[in-house]
């Protein structure tokens, strides 16, 4: 028997937890904005709108990803905005964001992926985001006199950290989605019985 998460498999309970977390995320976004951390406030807002998008499009509040994804994203963004574990929290936030996007593509759009492929693709999206983020920081330093990129070695350690976080998060959610039977294509006959 597959073990089911009682909250996730009850759409209503999942939605209640998900929207509550989303409200917390918005509060954090507001707090960051007031503190002048516009970049992080923007990231929190982008994550929040991505989580909310399927519900808005389908006009059904229960169309929302499993709450643990929203939970990890909210915790990461909150920890980051309160100034703790700046780098790791940032990477976890980006990795979760990638997972949310890929899972939503899989579950709510015409893009169909197997569960393993979806998680692997989320890891690629995280790395790709890091590449774009590096480019953005570089030009921010050059054009706006910020000092985001300090040294080459530091940047290279960033790559190591982001890859590690992406892989760990990917493995965790691959395990979790398998456990709750979420995402991927419809279960193959026999899979539910043997899982």
């Amino acid at each position, binding site marked *: 028997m597959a073990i089911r998460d009682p909250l996730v498999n009850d759409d209503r309970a999942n939605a209640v937890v998900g929207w509550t977390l989303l409200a917390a995320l918005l509060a954090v976004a507001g707090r960051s904005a007031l503190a002048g951390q516009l970049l992080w406030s923007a990231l929190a807002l982008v994550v929040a709108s991505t989580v909310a998008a399927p519900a808005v499009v389908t006009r059904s509040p229960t169309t929302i990803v499993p709450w643990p994804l929203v939970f990890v994203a909210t915790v990461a963004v909150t920890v980051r905005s309160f100034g703790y574990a700046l780098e790791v929290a940032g990477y976890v936030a980006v990795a979760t964001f990638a997972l949310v996007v890929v899972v939503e593509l899989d579950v709510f759009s*015409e893009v169909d992926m197997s569960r393993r492929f979806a998680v692997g693709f989320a890891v690629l999206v995280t790395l790709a985001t890091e590449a774009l983020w590096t480019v953005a920081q570089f030009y921010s330093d050059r054009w706006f006199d910020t000092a985001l990129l300090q040294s080459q070695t530091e940047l*290279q350690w960033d790559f190591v950290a982001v*890859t590690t976080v992406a892989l760990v998060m990917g493995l965790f959610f691959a395990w979790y989605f398998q456990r709750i039977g979420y995402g991927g294509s419809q279960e193959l006959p026999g899979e539910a019985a043997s899982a």
Partner: protein
Amino acid sequence: MTDGIVPGLSERQERLVTRTMQLALGGLSAYGLVTLQLGMAANGGVALAVTLFPALLSREYDYAMAPALVLWVTVAVFLHSIGSLGPYRWFSWYDEIAHTVSASVIAGLGYASFRALERHSEDIEVPPAFRGVFIVVFVLAAGVVWELLEFGSGRLASALGADAPLVVMGIDDIVTDFLFNAVGAVLVALAGTDAVGGLVGFFRRRLHASDGD
């Protein structure tokens, strides 16, 4: 005479150009060995090995890669090998061209693997626009993985007291690489996916074979 994919070249001419570059890489490697410049020898040798990979595929799996594809791969590694002899330092645009070309090879490989997986697996079905997005994501991610390789090999080399085999020339070098990788990826996403049609079929047959059917 069979027309090749490269405009103006027949398949025979495409092969000839490939052979010429392979010969040059072999020569570079031999020259490095004779003059005891081991970095140069390894550089030429590894590049030559990469260009011979399609021949290995054809031997092992009876898959004849289109000569234009072999040429494409060969041009990419040739540009990098020759670049490290000097052009990288002489011309600022050289690195950018080399990265655009090799990113297009990675993009082609990524696209072919994905397409093969998509056709092979009943679980994966995507609209065409997604394939373009996949190519760009794949190449950008490959750029970060490549940086990890450079970083890792550099640290390993310094732990062993040797020279770093892959030299990273600063943050702006990394950023330029990422940017021009993206250019190569977008070019392939927009225009180049037809060229790897044969490779898709090959990967797909391998997937079938590995399933045992």
